[in-house]
């Protein structure tokens, strides 16, 4: 069973979000990294770029496939995790510490539409079959 921390929020497309003030930190879930396998390249958005909720904003490429990462929320990128460029396998080893980017949210009410850990666990379990 993959790890799904209770304190985070999730999307059906396997992103996780943690919130501090009006800033959302975004990564991909343990389930997603396990499906994709060893990461070899990670393409991050530019700081200052704005995304709508659901817009494709990053690419994680593993030995198996390239996969788009969708912005879980609308907002502006305020920071990216540049350490991942040289160390993409960190996403495999520590998916919840290896965040991809931080967003300044433009509409915090969108958080209400995100999945809680229990609901996401169900999505991930269905997805494995």
């Amino acid at each position, binding site marked *: 069973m993959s790890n799904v921390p209770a304190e985070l929020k999730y999307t059906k497309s396997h992103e996780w979000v943690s919130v501090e003030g009006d800033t959302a930190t975004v990564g991909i879930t343990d389930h997603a990294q396990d499906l994709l396998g060893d990461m*070899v*390249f990670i393409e991050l958005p530019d700081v200052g770029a704005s995304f709508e909720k659901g817009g494709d904003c990053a690419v994680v*490429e593993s*030995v198996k496939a*390239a996969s788009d990462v969708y912005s879980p929320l609308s907002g502006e990128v305020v920071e990216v995790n540049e350490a991942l460029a040289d160390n993409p396998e960190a996403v*495999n080893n520590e998916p919840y510490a290896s965040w991809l980017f931080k967003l300044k949210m433009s509409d915090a009410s969108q958080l209400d539409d995100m999945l809680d850990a229990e609901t996401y666990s169900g999505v991930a379990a269905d997805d494995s079959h």
Partner: protein
Amino acid sequence: MGKQTPLYDKHVVMGAKMVDFGGWDMPLRYGSQIEEHHQVRNDAGMFDVSHMSVVDFTGPDTRQFLRKVFANNVDRLTTPGKALYTCMLKPDGTILDDLIVYYMDENWFRVVFNASTHDKDLAWVKEQAKSFSAMEIIEPPNMAMIAVQGPNARAKVGAVFDEPVRSAIAALAPFTAAHFGDLFISRTGYTGEDGFEIILPAAQVNDVWRSLYGEGVKPIGLGARDSLRLEAGMNLYGSDMDETTSPLESGLGWTVAWEPEGRDFIGRAALEKIRSEGTTHKLVGLILEGKGVLRNHQKVIVKGQDGGEVTSGGFSPTLGKSIAFARISKEVSGTCKVEMRGQQMVATVVKLPFVRNGKSVQ
């Protein structure tokens, strides 16, 4: 659910992610695919290849039969245990399968076919064998097969067998085999490293797997098997060649034995025609210069036009870059572009292999 090898339960217990491969449930990886790759390049790893098909051809007509159905010439095999790599062709010169044939004795040749082609291969050889009455085609039942590969494979495989097998393993030359009753060991493989392929009764395979594990030989899945063979410049049937391509445009011209001219192997006339008219495409290696990973079927662009396609692509852990085989227009050299996720990326055209004896040769 697919077919299971005798090691299926072991894979599950060892935490393997299982995938379908040619109708078989096979391990893709046990943990990190890249670590498995390095394990084979730096030490020793083992692969369950029990899905591959072992077929024995026996009887006085065998040599004549194999001279006819294989594009390489089994007359090169005269010493017991000697192995030969060859394609089996259709009359139009396209490839039914690639395989290794071993000379056991004058009345016994052993062939290892691919897993996914088993049914059509057997149907084909049985059809062709109708005019060879003094030959039998036998599939030894309940066999399993393990490949052990890597610079330390030789020492570690030797350690799990008793004499006289141990000494025979130590003395085995590359591309030869020895057998001891039901146990067959060849110094062959699909990784570009030293190593062995061991064919043995299914009832014994779990013990041998466990003993190898005890010697520090780690299990390796199909994912690393693919990146290892790609680095080593070895074709995969169904990706790099199939029933639409001949050996001459698959980098396998060297496996076609044109001499003696009188040997009328199946596909010869068609291949001679292709050779005299000249091929339009060749199989080459590509190294991607930027970030990203080359994938099967991506389009190759040469001078703004369709120049071919990637037949096998992936990430090379040894080079730290993406590499591929591509079938491209014959005149291309230097660089080309590959269409990847809506962008055209520059790739360098290189000779195969990418890696030899654990080191990049690029």
